[in-house]
């Protein structure tokens, strides 16, 4: 894999800025006036108690929802109202809280499906499975095999993912997101429901992706140990509002965060 080389965005520049974003569904306010930024090549955690609006935030970033107020700027350009596939083509990949793999396809095909936008050969060659279509298939297969090696899932290459245990499915889903060579990778609870060993593996993969390829990662996670160890900066949401933002150390000591998680005596 190669890091997306974009000279304009060096490490540390603001890759994605969220400014005063609010999101409402009728009377329900999922997000209220949230602002934060994600810098190039950092691991940014979004944490908060259940129902705080973390997943809604990710949904806004990759185009599932459009904020009712405020704006999102990606790579210095204010985003127009866009569909998820446009966000994907712009370089945003994502994994889901509850695994959203293509169940009947093999691991290999799932990750190959992630390469769909990179494939160019036209319908005619696809019909004959020959010439450019086959050349492209092999080229992308090589890339996909690198991801399979990286995630250590060679043995399940041809297994339909529906039959895999949960931990491996999560790993395949990460592989599928990586195959898009994203600039910004959104991970929605990548370690939910995993045992310690699986969590350690997953943490290792996340760090390696970040360090080797400089991929910017936004992460939602409930395991505080993992969040504090992995992330460069943390933003804390509660009831759709931002209550803290800073390094793990700063956030850990913040009285409002402690209140949000442990409750406060009235």
């Amino acid at each position: 894999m190669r890091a997306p080389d974009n000279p304009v965005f060096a490490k540390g520049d603001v890759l994605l800025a969220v400014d005063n974003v609010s999101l409402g569904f009728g009377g329900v306010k999922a997000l209220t006036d949230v602002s934060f930024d994600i810098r190039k090549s950092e691991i940014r955690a979004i944490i908060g108690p259940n129902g705080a609006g973390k997943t809604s935030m990710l949904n806004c970033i990759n185009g599932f929802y459009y904020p009712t107020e405020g704006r999102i700027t990606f790579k210095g350009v204010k985003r127009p109202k866009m569909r998820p596939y446009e966000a994907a083509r712009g370089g945003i990949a994502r994994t889901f809280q509850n695994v959203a793999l293509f169940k009947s396809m093999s691991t290999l095909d799932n990750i190959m499906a992630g390469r769909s936008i990179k494939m160019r050969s036209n319908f005619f060659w696809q019909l004959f499975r020959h010439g450019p279509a086959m050349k492209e298939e092999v080229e992308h297969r090589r890339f996909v095999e690198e991801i399979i090696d990286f995630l250590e899932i060679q043995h399940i290459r041809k297994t339909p993912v529906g039959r895999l245990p949960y931990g491996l499915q999560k790993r395949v889903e990460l592989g599928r997101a990586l195959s898009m060579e994203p600039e910004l990778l959104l991970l929605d609870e990548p370690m939910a429901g995993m045992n310690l060993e699986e969590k350690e593996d997953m943490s290792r993969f996340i760090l390696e992706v970040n360090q080797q390829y400089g991929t910017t990662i936004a992460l939602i996670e409930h395991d505080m140990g993992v969040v504090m160890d992995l992330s460069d900066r943390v933003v804390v949401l509660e009831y759709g509002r931002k209550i803290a933002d800073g390094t793990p150390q700063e956030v850990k000591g913040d009285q409002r965060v402690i209140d949000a998680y442990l409750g406060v005596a009235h």
Partner: protein
Amino acid sequence: MLYREAGQFKTNYVADSAIFPLRQDRLGLGLIIVAAYALAFMGSDFLLQAVLIPFLVFSLASIGLNILTGYTGLLSLGTGAFMGVGAYACYKLMTAFPGVNVIVWIFVSGFFSAAIGALFGLPSLRIKGFYLAVATLAAQFFLQWCFIRIPWLVNYNVSGALEAPLRTLFGIPIVGATATPQTRYLVVLTIVIVLTWLASNLVHGRIGRMWIAIRDMDLAAELMGIRPLQTKLLAFAVSSYYCGVAGALLVFLWYGGAEYDVFNINQSFFILFMVIIGGLGSLIGSFFGAALIFILPIVLGIVLPAMMSPFGISVGADVIEHLRFMIVGALIIFFLIVEPHGLARLWQIGKQKLLVWPFPY
């Protein structure tokens, strides 16, 4: 013992991503194709005309619907109408331009069907499942209305029917009253083999993966950058193309002439049952489904009286007919209970068992 994976090593990605990775499978497929061609010279006219030609036509239509419903997960009840568009388009083209070979028009008529199919596929972006089925039902009724009410489609033929004019290939009649079942069978077989091969290429490549992605998890597919509307419309277009060609074959190479009611809602359901029983998302399943639903009743019609006669029981044709319906119905229910994923899955399980036979795993 002959069916083993052992010793067949893949040394490059092309070989590894082959559609039939096993040498025995390729050999078996070759044998089936050779046997299918041999049947043209050995089979009786009854076998060719009443069994094999319709079997191939229905298989092709099932492949069409399978691309839409099996691979892309979009339920359609408009198959009959899309077949009709192909048949009527073919009729208009071959009567308007008699100089061009009819084979060309059979392939071209599919494009008309594809365009109409894509048009009626537009609602699929917003609606799914049963609701989409109802929307395609609109296509079925509207197009059938067109077939009845627009006499231009049948060149103002007073009977309102499509009639196959005489058309030849290399001087041999292939369409029309004088074409023999043998030549017609060879033409249908060749067209079905070519189109099945193309479909198999499509579903095993990028486009097939996009279709399955939309079927399995459309939200995630969109996040992979797959455009839902284009992908679904492509599935509608390709599916309708296959149905259209099947419709043209049905009228001109099997029936020799037909009226609008060949393409009614029953035809749509007939094809849908073939796809469900054969196996959703499987090309070989389309052939199995067509065989079970179309050939089995014919076989029963021959076998049942023969089974009865040694016992001195002579039954009327009407009883045989009823028995046939009952047995086919019972078998359909049986297969759906035993293997809801269709005959194709049974076939796959059988092959896997054979690979490791005589050991259980």
